[in-house]
């Protein structure tokens, strides 16, 4: 079976000189649920955004379903993007619009300019949006304005929007970073179960390691723009985890423990 996604030697240097990605390479097969863990600033967001070209990489190639995305022209890029759903840390909904309008935005990649500008979503699309909303438990909020929802509800709308695209891959950039522990659990449960049921692959960046270990089959740990670990979650050793989350030598052990959520044997 061909790989769904191939990333080769990805580099990204921002205009302010930050070398965010220093040669990241990995392959992804269909059906995987990958969690990317690492410190803030390690390159997780940059990596995800390069995959659908919201950020253009400086060097390296990304091949999605056989298409090299960085070389795609406008039309091809739209086709790639509509098959990749994205979920954001700050939800990125259009606040003034209703829940169902936000979900239907997921169909824009399949519609031409005229249809998209005049909101000409087909009845089929609307029915599908309603059924997705039902699936995530939001059938009562369908006509509410997006800014009237709680954080957990907003993220479920974000998930619904991604699902409306009928994606092959879902990218989630710290989807639960802005949520309380209970909502986080709810959102991750929905994300995980829906991806499993529909056969959608996912790459989720998280800094909550316990969630990563709970849901992911494969963990990629990023440190300083490079992959520090790439393997099954059960094979991840404590020492490797500490390596990923290790701060500079002047930082205390307690900070590391906070980040990894585990107790160190050397802790005072």
């Amino acid at each position: 079976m061909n790989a769904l996604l191939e990333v080769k030697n990805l580099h990204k240097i921002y205009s302010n000189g930050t070398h965010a990605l220093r040669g990241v390479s990995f392959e992804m097969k269909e059906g995987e649920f990958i969690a990317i863990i690492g410190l803030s600033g390690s390159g997780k967001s940059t990596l995800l955004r390069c995959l659908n070209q919201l950020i253009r990489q400086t060097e390296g190639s990304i091949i999605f379903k056989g298409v090299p995305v960085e070389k795609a022209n406008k039309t091809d890029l739209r086709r790639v993007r509509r098959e990749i759903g994205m979920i954001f840390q700050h939800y990125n909904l259009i606040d003034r619009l209703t829940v169902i309008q936000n979900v239907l935005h997921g169909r824009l990649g399949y519609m031409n300019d005229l249809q998209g500008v005049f909101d000409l979503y087909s009845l089929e699309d609307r029915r599908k949006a309603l059924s997705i909303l039902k699936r995530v438990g939001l059938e009562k909020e369908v006509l509410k304005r997006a800014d009237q929802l709680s954080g957990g509800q907003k993220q479920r709308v974000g998930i619904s929007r991604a699902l409306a695209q009928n994606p092959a891959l879902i990218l989630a950039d710290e989807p639960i970073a802005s949520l309380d522990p209970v909502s986080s659990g709810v959102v991750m449960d929905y994300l995980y179960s829906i991806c499993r049921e529909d056969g959608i692959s996912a790459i989720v960046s998280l800094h909550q390691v316990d969630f990563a270990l709970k849901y992911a089959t494969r963990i990629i740990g990023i440190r300083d723009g490079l992959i520090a670990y790439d393997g099954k979650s059960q094979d991840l050793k404590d020492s490797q985890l500490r390596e990923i989350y290790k701060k500079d030598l002047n930082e205390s052990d307690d900070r590391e423990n906070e980040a990894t959520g585990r107790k160190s044997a050397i802790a005072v």
Partner: protein
Amino acid sequence: MQSAYIPLKKEKSLYTWTGVLLVLLTTVVTGYTTKFDAFEAVRVLPGIMDFILTDFLPPAAEAVPNFLSSLLDTLCMAIISTVTGAIISLVLALLCAAPTTPHPAVRVIIRAFASCLRNIPALAWAMIFVPAFGIGKTVGVMALVLGAMGSMIRFFAETIEEIDLGSIEAVRSVGGSYWQVLKNGVLPQCFPGIISWSLYNLELDIRASTIIGMVGGGGIGFFIQFTIKLFKYRQATMAIIAVTLLVLLTEALSKRIRERIM
């Protein structure tokens, strides 16, 4: 040895005093050059008050039917110019604002253009257009539109630049094209700001159209100027009161509309 003086700010007060002196000096010199006599201004005040109280008051209520249609004209001129100006300005603002501009060069050109427009008041445009195209409401509307565009382009561009880019990112990531991102991501967010500025502009245009009327643009300004020239001062006062009421009414209405839209 400790200093007994604890200053409150870094700059020496010398700068402050120099500044104050300069302002005073400038005032005196310019007053002298323009032959502005403050004492004369105070001396003539009673004469002015007398003139107003005798000749301009009481307002001639019977004149109302004479200018009612002109007042309506003024209102219509203001509405048409605001709507037309808003549509043109929105298009140009979209080309000019950072998130939606197709090319940085376009942005610079439009900003320069808007700056020039902004510095030429509607009155100046009217004075150019009236001799060129004749007296009348169409000319008045043209002048108002050009006068309004300068500031509206800038206000709209600022509204567009203040939007949350995260939402734009989301519509791009689903595979949205430029136009789809514009309609679904940008416009819903700018909508309150655009309506707000347009209503503000409507109020400005009502006042401006009064002035434009005086140079031949039509509407109530024309009526006011013509009654003054014919020494029918009391009718002019009535018209002025009517315009004031119209402006107040518009302000109240626009406040209500803004509250509903937000």
